[in-house]
């Protein structure tokens, strides 16, 4: 057994998994609250990556240092992704709140196609290089022979964001409103929760997390194009279902399980079948736990 190879795979799996988890959170939160698979979520993440790239390009040419560029790029990306998420909800989902469940799904797919082509036409259809803007602390450079320092930064950022989100949902008033809306919209409304507002907040938070994921993965992989959101969205959705859709720790766990499975599968079996491993583990887990790893299987009462 080659331990350093194993460690490499483990680290890259964990890194990828934590980014999947960041995007999966957006899916899971939106799903929890309005039972919609938000197919445009991957595009929000892609827009986040593009906005960060543009901001970074402008700021670097102005001569700012790396750390400032990184923070500002993330900030602008988060603002814009949230704005897009908010607008998409208002245009494509809000008018369909009382329609059958598949109508918003198709509307989401249409939105996803629209946003992809919007970015392709207004920017470029080619892959563009993404600068290495993730600042690496000094002490991590010493261990860079063993672990990838960028990976460590990504994992740390993800963990911090997750903890912040959990606290937000558990402790704040708006978090409470979100949980109430997810449980029962009508009842929440009767208790004085502004449901429309709460749904908007959910979209804004989910989009902000996707933007962070977009910046991190852009800097990690080193290039982006208008199509990255589609694949990442599919993977993140898989991760969300794997962990039990609607559950926030589930999304985190699902993302990590998915990332590790892919990493070990490609490393030890074959790199051609990367996506097959992801879906095989999904099917296997769902056969034994039909509501995902952490999902609650609620017994229906008649």
């Amino acid at each position, binding site marked *: 057994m080659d331990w350093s190879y194993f460690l490499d795979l483990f680290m890259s799996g964990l890194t990828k998994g934590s980014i999947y988890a960041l995007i999966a959170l957006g899916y899971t939160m939106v*799903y929890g609250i309005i039972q919609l*698979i938000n197919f445009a979520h991957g595009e929000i993440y892609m827009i986040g990556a*593009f906005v960060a*790239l*543009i901001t970074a*390009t*402008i700021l*670097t*040419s102005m001569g700012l240092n790396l750390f400032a560029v990184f923070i500002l790029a993330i900030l*602008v990306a988060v603002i*814009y992704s949230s*704005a*897009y998420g908010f*607008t998409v909800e208002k*245009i*494509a989902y809000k*008018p*369909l709140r009382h*329609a*059958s469940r*598949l*109508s918003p*799904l*198709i*509307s989401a*797919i*249409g*939105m*996803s*196609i*629209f*946003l*992809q*082509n*919007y970015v392709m*036409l*207004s*920017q*470029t259809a080619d892959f*563009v*290089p993404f600068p290495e803007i993730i600042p690496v602390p000094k002490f991590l450079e010493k261990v860079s022979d063993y672990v990838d320092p960028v990976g460590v930064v990504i994992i740390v950022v993800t963990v911090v964001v997750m903890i912040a989100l959990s606290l937000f949902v558990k402790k704040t008033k708006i978090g409470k409103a979100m949980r109430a809306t997810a449980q029962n919209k009508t009842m929440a409304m009767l208790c004085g929760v502004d449901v429309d507002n709460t749904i908007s907040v959910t979209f804004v938070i989910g989009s902000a997390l996707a933007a962070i994921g977009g910046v991190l993965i852009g800097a990690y992989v080193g290039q982006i194009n208008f199509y990255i959101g589609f694949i990442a969205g*599919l993977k993140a*959705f*898989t991760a969300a*279902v794997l962990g039990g*859709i609607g559950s926030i720790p589930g999304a985190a766990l699902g993302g990590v399980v998915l990332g590790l499975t892919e990493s070990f599968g490609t490393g030890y079996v074959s790199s*051609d*079948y990367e*996506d*097959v491993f*992801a*879906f*095989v583990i*999904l*099917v296997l887990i*769902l*056969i034994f736990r*039909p509501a*995902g790893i952490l999902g609650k299987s609620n017994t229906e009462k*008649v």
Partner: protein
Amino acid sequence: MERLVEEVKKSLITAAWFVFLTFPMIVVKLHSAENRVSYRWINALYVAIGAFFISFIWRYLLERRDKKSSSDNVEDSLVYKVLNHPVYSKILYGAVFVFVLIFPLLFSTYQTNIMTTALIYVVLALGLNIVVGLAGLLDLGYVAFYAVGAYGYALLSKYFGLGFWAVLPMAGILAAIAGIILVFPILRLKGDYLAIVTLGFGEIIRIFLENWDGLTNGPSGISGIPRPSFFGMEMKVDQSLIFIYYITVALVIFTIFVVNRLQVSRLGRAWLALKEDEIACQSMGIDRVRAKLTAFALGATWAGFAGVIFAAKTTFVNPASFTFFESVIILAIVVLGGMGSIVGVIIAALMMILLPEYLRAFSDYRMLIFGLAMVLVMVFKPEGLIPFRGGRLVYKKREPGKDGSSNEKRAYS
């Protein structure tokens, strides 16, 4: 007057919001090679003006939609009047049928070929309609069965020299078996869990086709697939394509007939019950497992047929034709048409396939318009273009002066 000021204010805010929103994409242009950006300020003005006026129209249309859905009955609309009228509907169907028959004579082979593609999608959508529209099982990997049909024909003709007519029924059976294999382990899954597993199944099939070089020739695909024969007659390419067109038309008619009959069969009603409520459906004595299996198997069969025709038409298959996007398009056709409604599905299939084809004039913008059209149709027609009105019992009032014995006619529409 006050209302006008209010509306203008709303539109101004919308315009400002969209200028902000589109700024980094439409105004800023990234030149990644030179590591700099340039600015296209004029675009901001276009966005502002566009958003200002469109927001008026948007609000007006939404208001009208909400008013309409609460007051009017959909059955009263002109489309339904024609479709339900005993004479007009027959005239309409007859005219469409004649038009379809003489289509290759009126238009070029190129147009006929596009029409064949559209009709293949009609078959696919009607097949998926069984699974999604009737049985209410969301299937995001339907394209897998299409691939089974297409590759089934390609491989059977390559390795065993089987012809089109021999493979056509076999492909249907193969696809049905694939459907049963897929659904058997996941009978317990519901709703979106089922959706993601079917999605995964579709992707797994595609990835295997892409990587199993020895059998499927990998991403480069299989070429030289024979076109269908007509009692051993030699045909030129043009004639052969027109022949395929008529085969597709025949298949569409057969599909419509079968789906129509299925809807009102015992099985079709079992599916509708399954869609409404699984537990209630079981307690009525419907075998849930059987209903699910037959829905998937029958749905897949049509995809298998369509796959064979597709392979025969293009004489070439590769994995790129069977991506997730294809499943999405087929699902979009079903929902846009109005789930369960045959006429709606046909119209939506023609729209979804012919629209991008004839939008080629706008080349770059066609997919942008396509995506936008999907959103707009859903927002303003959430139940689809021609909503399905079947599956419920309609009590017709007694007409005065008639025989009282059948005073309440029950019609199952």
